[in-house]
């Protein structure tokens, strides 16, 4: 038997973004179902047992699980329904503009959920060894940083006895400290870029405080060991090319990869949502609606945030967009937004003239003093001085502009 259910809003993913959005939708009187594959709501926050969460969103410093519980309770209190241990295996748009989701779970079996609007909040997956084609053998002991974090913090299992971390993403940095605390020496963090890719505070608190060597502009060029990892080879990079004559070996039995996150947009693609190659997430207007009417996106599935708080805030904004859409609001006739000099991307990709809009950017440069400018019809209409620009840190601004394409440029003042 296939269960049938209808609702106003189906939220796919019960992480920082999906729960915030679900809470808001439910609070605004919409029947809301939040679906997640995990048996507990909260997404990756559940395995992030360190603190540093919630300062923006809850005005209070919390651990990941505390943040997860807080935001889950808010969603439940607002009246959202949580479907956990449940996987959305198919999704399609019906001729009347509603959506049909096929959901599998051990508890309920097969369910068809019809929703008037969908929020994509599936988050990210980690890039792995295969994605960066690290050469060498294929022994046990190679993990993504997040997979090792889950094993350690949720299952209580130690991934190895000595480690090298490839890449300096935040999860990798957090794991460097976590492993050290567990008695697993971290021999090195190896980063191909000249700057760490994680947040500066994590570099200080997780590496410097524990004297863990950080090799910038270095690559792991080989993995050794036939059954279990026995070591890696690292080499400095010159113009992006590893220098074999300066390569050195580091013995370890564990290699963690923390080499970036990829938005999980497989379901979005099934709906025909157009993806922005710069973010890996959907192309959206200022209400966070994708190109498919009724489909919204927020959080890491839209673009990779550096704080869970920002993902929640974005989820809440998407919820506002959904409320507007379900109340018959017209799709905004947007003006285009373009990321110009020194910016990897801008979100959203369009805005409505005369409406206050929140924009997010990812800088491509590192500098201590910079200016962000908005250009329209050939002249600068807005500017803001910024301090301490790092690619690891997202820029968020609010701006109301008139009609015309908006071009953002980030310029160093050094």
């Amino acid at each position, binding site marked *: 038997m296939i269960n049938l259910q209808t609702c106003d809003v189906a939220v796919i993913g019960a992480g920082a973004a999906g729960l915030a959005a679900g809470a808001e939708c439910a609070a605004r009187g919409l029947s809301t179902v939040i679906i997640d594959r995990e048996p507990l709501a909260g997404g990756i926050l559940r395995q992030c047992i360190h603190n540093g969460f919630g300062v923006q969103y809850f005005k209070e410093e919390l651990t990941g699980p505390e943040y997860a519980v807080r935001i889950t309770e808010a969603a439940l209190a607002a009246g959202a329904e949580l479907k956990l241990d449940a996987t959305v295996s198919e999704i399609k748009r019906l001729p009347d503009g509603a959506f049909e989701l096929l959901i599998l779970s051990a508890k309920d*079996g097969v369910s068809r959920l019809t929703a008037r609007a969908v929020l994509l909040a599936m988050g990210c997956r980690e890039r792995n060894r295969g994605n960066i*084609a690290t050469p060498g053998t294929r022994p046990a002991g190679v993990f993504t940083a997040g997979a090792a974090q889950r*094993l350690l913090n949720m299952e209580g299992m*130690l991934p190895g006895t000595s480690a090298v971390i490839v890449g300096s993403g935040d999860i990798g940095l957090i794991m460097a400290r976590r492993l050290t*605390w*567990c008695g697993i020496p971290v021999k090195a963090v190896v980063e191909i870029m000249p700057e760490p890719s994680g947040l500066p505070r994590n570099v200080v608190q997780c590496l410097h405080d524990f004297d863990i060597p950080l090799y910038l502009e270095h690559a792991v060029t080989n993995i050794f060991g036939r059954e*279990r990892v026995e070591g890696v080879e690292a080499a400095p990079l010159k113009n992006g090319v590893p220098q074999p004559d300066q390569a050195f070996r580091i013995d370890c039995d564990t290699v963690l990869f923390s080499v970036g996150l990829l938005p999980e947009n497989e379901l979005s693609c099934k709906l025909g949502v157009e993806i922005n190659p710069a973010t890996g997430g959907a192309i959206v207007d200022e209400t966070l609606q994708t190109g498919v009417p009724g489909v919204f996106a927020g959080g890491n599935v839209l673009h990779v945030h550096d704080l869970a708080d920002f993902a929640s805030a974005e989820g809440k904004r998407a919820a506002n967009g959904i409320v507007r859409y379900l109340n018959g609001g017209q799709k905004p006739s947007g003006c285009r937004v373009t990321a110009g000099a020194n910016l990897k991307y801008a979100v959203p990709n369009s805005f409505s003239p005369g409406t206050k809009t929140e924009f997010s950017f990812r800088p491509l440069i590192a500098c201590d003093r910079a200016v962000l400018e908005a250009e329209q019809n050939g002249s600068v209409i807005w500017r803001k001085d910024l301090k301490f620009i790092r690619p690891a840190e997202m820029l968020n601004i609010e701006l109301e502009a008139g009609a015309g394409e908006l071009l953002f440029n980030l310029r160093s003042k050094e």
Partner: protein
Amino acid sequence: MYDAAIIGAGVSGVATAWQLSHYELRVALLEQCADVGFGVSKANSGIIHAGFHHPAGSLKAKLEIRGNLMFEKLQYELGFPFRRDGILVVAFSPEEMATVQKLYAQGVANGLRNLEMCGRERLLQLEPKLNHEVVGGFFAPGGGTIEPYRYVFSMVESARKNGLELYCGFKVEHGAFDGKHWTLAAANGKTIQARYVVNAAGLFADEVSRNCGAEDFKITPRKGEEYLLDRESPARPRRVIFPVPTKTSKGVLVIPTAEGTTMIGPTAESTDDKGDVSTSADRMKQIVAQVRQMVDGISARDIITSFAGLRPALETEDFYIELSKKAPNFVQVAGIQSPGLTAAPAIGEYVKDLLRNAGLRLVEKNGDHTLPRRHEIRHETPESLAALHQDDPRWTHVVCRCENISEAEIIEAVRHGHTTLDGIKFYTRAGMGRCQGGFCSARIMMIVSRETGIPMERLTKKGGASHLLAGKLGSMEVK
């Protein structure tokens, strides 16, 4: 006492065991690894060759063509993934076209009646993903693709259902014939006695032969690196695409795998290390550059994983399948590199006939060799999933999100004896998708531990010392 002992549970040993399981015989299959098919058979291109690559008169050509014809029946009985979508051999210059014509003629001489010479237009019609600079080539509709480990696993499963006894972790170190029977001794001290021995030890067939007092020959590993592309890669072709071959290999191919992904490779490089299955940055660049000449939509960005396999090459470059002239009741099955996967069912028959000629009495058994259809939730309709859920709720508990594999499928793998992470991956595809086990490995480990009682820290990736974890939190001293 066994009637026959087969050394090596790779595709040729397993195909032999499967053939013998049709007769009233007691057969032992001895494998040094933790699971079957874990050597040469798991790491290759998974091609069912069409019969034009090897000259008439060679054992390779004979068994390849015979084997090729057996796949529909095998698939019907055993249910492994197999697609006969055809092979294209493509040329990009008049010189290459000359080789194409020679290959075509060789195929015709081998008795192939369905080869089709193609000009550019016809090739692009057959395969729109081809680089438009293609000059010509031919189409071999009899070629196809297979999931090699599934093929090996299913033959073992069927043979075991019919009495085959499997010993994993049995590395034959010594064999002696006492005039009546063989005694095979393993590294772990165990021994097995059998009247006949089949040496199908793959890369190690030369060592086994020597340790049993049979012929002296040398297997030279020839490494092939392969790269797997994301399921959504826009470059996935409809058919297997071959370049014109070189002296030592059939070239670097573009392979639409039987399970819907795309693979590129293999390289061909001799090595003297039978354990070296490492990949290298240079080879990856070389492969990508070579396949992009054939299918320009391929991108290194779509690579999700890589692996290398070793071909057990003999100097003669032909299969070596015959009764030993030195050791009694001992059959050599060596040098089974490409097209070994295709030829394997015919190799099994051929070895069976050699054993019969050597005096093994074959009495047909009234067995059932067909395997029940396996449920895989990625192929089920919502209605049949709902019915499966009624039987066992774990059918609708999705464990591997990328390849859509349920907990019930993982449990089936465990119940069929696959308890390593790689064994479960090959049996179910869990962990084979784009996240490469990032999300599901921990879940799978917990299921295996629960089902087998093996503690988490004793679970391995592929047997031996390939432990996945170091221990429980709190079990290590902080230095």
